[in-house]
């Protein structure tokens, strides 16, 4: 084997109370795609931060083409040729594409930056990626996927020979992801090593050459050829035990009473038109669609965060006009598990107790409005036990938990109160295999106990596993409904056909020519 481009030897990184990385090894060869896998909290992000100079390792060595290097800052890593595209976008929205691409080495003459000189190099980088973007366009006008590609172009401009992509496809549609893979293949063809972090194993197997699996801060599989391993091998390496798909206890839908939630001909300020569907007691109704189909926007409008122009919302048979999430919660018992866990779901810098008990303070409060912290903690402890949330103590800040556990905390607050209708929005994005499975079981059991659930997800597998019915949306309209027979192949065929039956142009165009 030739000299690796970048190699880690016995990297150790310690945070208070935990060895985040424990003698991790990694060998990155030029011209390959290297998969970095592991559950949430296994140490992937920490390793990336060590490789890019954000964290200094507490032990071990980094070798760049055989020479030992010490990276003191992301800038140094960038100069060496290590580029990174984080999960969150790191572009400056107000700057143009060219300015963003050339940000680290802006072409300058006598200390003055010349905007015109940026266009050329920026265009070269974009062309190399096969992108047709105007370098003069402000980045804020681009889609998320395009912004991501701009970041990759930025890494190209600094001559990155190792490019780290942290969950690049998390917020991309299948088409956009395919385009990204095309770019990755181009990059490897010119000798770059791409490190690909993802929870989606299908992508990993389609794209990657070698693989490193981390578990609890150790590398359980180190820079091995991916072709020698099966899908199941990798999952059991990540989870640390054989992963068996468990069958759920069958459950029945109680369609006798009035529907728990019934939408009829809803039109909203966000552009929805004629949206109708019902959710029965104990039923899981999936809302499937591509990113931008308007699913979360629909739910937010129903919760009173946006205007509903016309149509009728009935909750448990009673006509409802909901003006705020507060009213939705306290009057109608609707809980909404948001897709933006960090921005809208949990209070990162607040104790777990408060995060969970926030919905029941009204009930716990005494005459003076005082809340007994003992009763508050009892509520939180009960849910921590029920959901299997892993924590050191209840007073810990929610931000110290791993992503999956944060998501459980976010769900716990709705289970603490007497939620009679649960809306879950992308519940398992960025959550590892094991937690994802636990979550599915949890939602299934909730429905079995009679909870009506609206499940919004872009993960078709999740839909097929959980939903009783799938409502397919595209372009802010309902395209049709499919009863779930839990057969992935058949279901995906039908759903994709519903979505693409008609091309899904923008909502504005749609309105004009929509005839039933």
């Amino acid at each position: 084997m030739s000299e690796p481009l970048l190699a880690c030897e016995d990297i150790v990184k310690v945070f208070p109370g935990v060895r985040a990385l424990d003698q991790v090894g990694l060998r990155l060869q030029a011209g390959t795609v290297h998969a970095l896998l592991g559950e949430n909290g296994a140490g992937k992000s920490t390793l990336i931060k060590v490789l890019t100079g954000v964290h200094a390792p507490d032990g071990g060595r980094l070798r760049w083409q055989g020479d030992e290097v010490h990276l003191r800052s992301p800038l140094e890593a960038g100069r060496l040729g290590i580029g990174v595209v984080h999960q969150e976008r790191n572009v400056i929205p107000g700057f143009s594409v060219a300015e963003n691409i050339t940000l680290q080495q802006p072409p300058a003459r006598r200390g003055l930056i010349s905007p015109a000189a940026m266009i050329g190099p920026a265009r070269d980088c974009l062309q190399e990626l096969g992108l047709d973007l105007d370098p003069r366009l402000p980045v804020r006008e681009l889609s998320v996927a395009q912004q991501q590609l701009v970041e990759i172009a930025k890494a190209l401009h600094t001559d990155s020979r190792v490019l780290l992509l942290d969950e690049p496809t998390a917020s991309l549609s299948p088409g956009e992801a395919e385009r990204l893979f095309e770019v990755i293949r181009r990059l490897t063809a010119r000798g770059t090593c791409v490190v690909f972090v993802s929870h989606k194993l299908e992508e990993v197997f389609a794209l990657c050459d070698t693989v490193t699996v981390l578990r609890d801060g150790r590398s359980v599989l180190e820079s091995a050829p991916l072709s020698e391993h099966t899908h199941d091998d990798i999952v059991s390496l990540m989870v640390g035990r054989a992963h068996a798909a468990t069958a759920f206890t069958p459950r029945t839908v109680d369609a006798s009473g009035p529907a728990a939630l019934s939408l009829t001909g809803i039109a909203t300020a966000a552009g929805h038109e004629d949206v109708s569907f019902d959710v029965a007691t104990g039923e899981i109704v999936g809302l499937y669609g591509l990113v931008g189909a308007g699913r979360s926007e629909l739910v937010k409008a129903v919760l009173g965060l946006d205007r509903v122009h016309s149509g009728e919302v009935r909750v448990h048979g009673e006509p409802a006009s909901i003006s705020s999430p507060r009213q939705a919660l306290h009057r109608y018992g609707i809980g909404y598990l948001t897709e933006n866990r960090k921005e809208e779901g949990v209070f990162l810098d607040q104790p777990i107790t408060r995060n969970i008990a926030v919905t029941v303070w009204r009930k716990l409060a005494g005459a003076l409005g005082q809340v007994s912290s003992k009763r508050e903690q009892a509520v939180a402890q009960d849910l921590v036990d029920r959901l299997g949330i892993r924590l050191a103590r209840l007073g810990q800040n929610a931000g110290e938990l791993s992503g999956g556990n944060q998501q459980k905390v976010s769900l716990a607050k709705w289970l603490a109160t007497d939620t009679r209708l649960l809306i879950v929005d992308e519940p398992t994005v960025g959550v590892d295999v094991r937690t994802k499975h636990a979550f599915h079981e949890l939602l299934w059991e909730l429905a079995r106990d009679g909870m009506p659930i609206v499940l919004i997800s872009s993960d078709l597998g999740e839909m097929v596993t959980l939903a009783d019915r799938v409502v397919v949306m595209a372009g802010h309209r309902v395209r049709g409904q499919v009863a779930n027979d839990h057969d992935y192949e058949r279901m995906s065929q039908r759903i994709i056909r519903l979505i693409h039956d008609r091309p899904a142009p923008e909502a504005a165009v749609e309105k004009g020519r929509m005839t039933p």
Partner: protein
Amino acid sequence: MRTAAVAPDAGTEEPQTPPRTSDRLPFWVNQRLGLLVLTIGLALLFGALRPAFFDARLVLFPLLRDISTLTVVALAQMVVLSVGHMNLAVGRMAAFGALFAGFGYDRLGLPLPLGLLLCLAAGAAIGALTGWIIARTGVGSFVVTLAMDFALLGLVSLAYSALTENAAFTSTPAGLDELRAYSLADICVGPVCGSPAIPQIAQFTVLALIALGFLYSCTRIGRELLLTGANPAAAELSGIPTKRRVVTAHALSGLLAALAGFMAAAGTGTFRASIGDDFMLPSFLGAVLGGTLLTGGVVSVVGALLGTSLVAVIRKGLDLLGVGLESLNIYLGCVLLLALSADRVRNVLSYRKVVRST
């Protein structure tokens, strides 16, 4: 469902400490404790250098009276900081409240407690109005309170010049002079009298501290204020009436500012427009030194008292040492920088210690 939810994790044997858990940091990292030690240490140092520092009537009494007033000012700022806002108009709201108290005593002949109530009501009302504007328009608290500061500056001066002859209400109700001058030495239970160092006006501060301590540690509204500050979007989605809480916080801030204005006026004996002129910076200083976060979501009621005390002790001590006003401010700046960075140093040290033991 209990068993089903736990089942998938039950079979694993690896010790599942959640990743990146910071263990509870050692007690000496506690910021409040550090402030207390620093304050007492400095007081002892000044006392050793200038024994006059411990003179109960001439030094400690006015020192504690200042601390009482400025602590209430810091609390007024802390309350808005808890929802992630700020109140640049604390001083002017204090003047606004004091204007009503003075008017009540001078023109309406109100007794002491009624005038105080009028003062508090005026402060709460102007605070609530500020909060309502912020909640309603969505304009930042910085801008709105800055505008409010200018508006009140003009309004209060106009009112004084229209209502009084020499820009001050001078007639005071019965009891106000006692409030200014009396200490615990004037309260005796049999032969035992209180300390002459502790002013009676501190009773308001103690009340405010207890009330806010109760609010933030025990009540629903207190928690809702903190969560609104920590993450407004998540708070709204969790069913917290965030707009109402913003109004609550600003109303409370106005009320406390007015109380501080009343205390300041009682301390000088006249109700004039210049009351509260120098409140704004100490309000931030006391709150932030005490551990309240500027970004919202974390407050320390006791910290506001300790932070204010530290600043006041340094001022008084340097003053006694004969340091001139200009150099006093330089020293004060240095000590504050030290106090704030000492906190950071403590955190880094304890963090390293915990890391080493892992």
